[in-house]
């Protein structure tokens, strides 16, 4: 199953199970969404539970907060993560703090889905990875899957969560596990074990990382598309890296991180977002706080550059296998 099909399946399963689940966003109704993640849902559940919205991300999230306070479980789509900013005030000032400020009289059990990341020639306004902004906002849970199986199970867990969850979908891997070799033919999910997705209900718990590759030499912390890039770099360098797929950025699975770095003594962090104050900064700070006395080399961050995502030169921007490999070698030499 492709990743967008897995997401569609999660929405289908949850709308079937819970009449309070409603799905809305720009172009997600009759049309089924620009990435097809809601295709067929309006026909199946009716336009009262699956509907298009005006082009107003602040309105979409604000209305969802009100619906959540009423008792529904809204799952909204922001067409691209690059367009979430008009909705940030409703997320930060309202959704994230409603439970706290009302001492749980009112809550905001919403899930905000948004495609993120580059590699599709989308330029600076269709390629961003704003995850670190959400992780700085207490009250928000932030999820970012790397494969169809997790995407479905994590989305179901997110919808069932009683607080707001930001669910980021790396659009470059909707159709296949992209490892950064953009000049190679696209590999379909059908040929990947994690492309096997059960039809029914299942959860992948929030707050748990997964070991994608066990190894002894160095721990790689990654999420989303970068998990596949890291796997490519490990096999290309022959370095015995242990690759952790974080899956949930907040709450963070610090136990899994600590256990792995205690074992390897080395750590490379990979993400596509710009470097400064990216989530890699939090990861690096956390690792050295937990494992300082075990570290044998400086923790490295491999990230997008601190520039907007360029259109024509996106592969110079994208932190691909070559850059991850270079970091792995440096850290092993360190």
């Amino acid at each position: 199953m492709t990743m967008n099909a897995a997401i569609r399946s999660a929405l289908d399963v949850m709308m079937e199970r819970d009449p309070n689940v409603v799905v809305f966003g720009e172009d997600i109704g009759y049309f089924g969404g620009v990435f097809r993640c809601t295709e067929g849902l309006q026909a199946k559940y009716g336009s009262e539970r699956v509907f298009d919205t005006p082009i107003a991300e602040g309105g979409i999230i604000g209305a969802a907060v009100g619906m959540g306070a009423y008792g529904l479980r809204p799952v909204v789509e922001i067409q691209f993560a690059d367009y979430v900013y008009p909705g940030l005030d409703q997320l930060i000032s309202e959704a994230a703090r409603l439970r706290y400020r009302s001492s749980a009289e009112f809550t905001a059990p919403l899930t905000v889905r948004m495609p993120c990341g580059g590699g599709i020639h989308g330029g600076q306004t269709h390629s961003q990875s704003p995850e670190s902004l959400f992780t700085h906002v207490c009250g928000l849970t932030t999820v970012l899957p790397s494969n169809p199986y997790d995407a479905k199970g994590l989305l179901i867990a997110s919808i069932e969560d009683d607080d707001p969850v930001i669910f980021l979908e790396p659009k470059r891997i909707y159709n296949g596990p992209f490892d950064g070799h953009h000049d190679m033919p696209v590999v379909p999910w059908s040929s990947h074990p994690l492309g096997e997705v059960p039809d029914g209900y299942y959860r992948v718990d929030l707050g748990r990382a997964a070991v994608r590759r066990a190894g002894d030499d160095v721990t790689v912390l990654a999420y989303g598309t970068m998990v596949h890039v890291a796997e490519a770099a490990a096999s290309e360098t022959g370095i015995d890296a242990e690759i952790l797929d974080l899956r949930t950025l907040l709450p963070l699975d610090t136990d899994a991180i600590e256990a792995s770095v205690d074992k390897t003594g080395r750590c490379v962090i990979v993400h596509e977002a710009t470097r400064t104050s990216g989530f890699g900064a939090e990861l690096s700070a956390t690792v050295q706080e937990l494992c300082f006395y075990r570290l044998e080399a400086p923790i490295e961050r491999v990230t997008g550059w601190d520039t907007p995502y360029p259109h024509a030169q996106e592969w110079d921007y994208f932190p691909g296998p070559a850059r991850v490999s270079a970091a792995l070698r440096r850290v092993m030499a360190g």
Partner: protein
Amino acid sequence: MAEAVPLRFGIPEPPARPGELADFSYLDLSAAGSVRRPDVDVAPAEMRDLAYSLIRVLDDQGAAVGPWAPDADLGALHEGLRAMVMTRAYDDRMVTAQRQGKTSFYMRCTGEEAIAVGHALQLRPGDMFFPTYRQQGWLIARRWPMVDMMCQVFSNEKDRLHGRQMPIMYSARDADFFSISGNLGTQFIQAVGWAMASAINGDTRIASGVVGEGTTAEADFHHALTFATTYQAPVILNVVNNQWAISSFQGIAGGSRSTFAARGIGYGIPSLRVDGNDYLAVLSATRWAAERARSNRGPTLIEWVTYRAAAHSSSDDPSRYRPAEEWKSWPLGDPIERLKTHLIAVDEWSEQQHADLVADTDREVLAAAKEAESYGTLLDGRVASARSIFEDVFKDIPPHLQRQRRQMEDER
């Protein structure tokens, strides 16, 4: 084509600044009873004039005149009077408490009591209200425990919000009163979302949201109107135009060029402009809008014309930016006085009864304050525990917050 002349930058100026004479000639008023009352099923296009006129019921003699005069039973009017008097007494008491350092901050609604009180008594239990910080009258009208209101203001051990929120940022689900946000306007689109949800569920409960005229400039106002009209949400969209937004008069929000009620026209939303200091007009206009919402006729926008008689908040000094006496020349008077005059005019009230009511409410408020203070105030520092600040960030306290709580306790 005209010859090119230098362009000029225009900034609206209030009619009067400190030291100058108050001047409300900019206000478009209509005589009491002069504005027509269309049926609730009127097409929005057929009632645009109501966004420019001013619905008033009480004339200067206190008689209820015209098509908007509600057939309110008098019990309801006495109840409203009680709540307005009580609200003002409550504000007085809390301002004193703030001056005594028992709380850090306070905001009164003096002169605007009719709107929240009338709205609260006209809407049904179960309807949800999305208020601003100036709608304490709703809680008092709904007889929410005043001691609980005060405990929140004092942030004391009995504060239902555990001292987390600034004073007056109440939350009262059991009184259909949504948690107040310190961020202006956000509740307006939330009210629409709540109403959409009620409609999606085939429920019968409607929503009502409030913003001040200054806050109409925020994005959430536009989102609320857009979503309300697109989905024909069962919601009342209230704009309380009290002429001031801290130091900025209503012209800064665009009020010099049109009424705020007229904002609804472009969205195809029926819009009323109403005398907010006329308790009977408040009941009547609220009823009209609520009936539209309940009967699947969609949203209504109401501009309530009133005046912020007091300072913006305990941190504000209005004499810095407007004539000290402006309130005295406000043409729409004092809502309490006007309802009192009406009830006396129809022989249902007397100066003596009113004096007794004021004395009784003062006593009630004083008693409540004594009790609330017995649970602590900011002065004596008997506030909710520090531990509690880690609760309700999420439904369950995640590991990193448990670690932080332990650290807080270790490092004391």
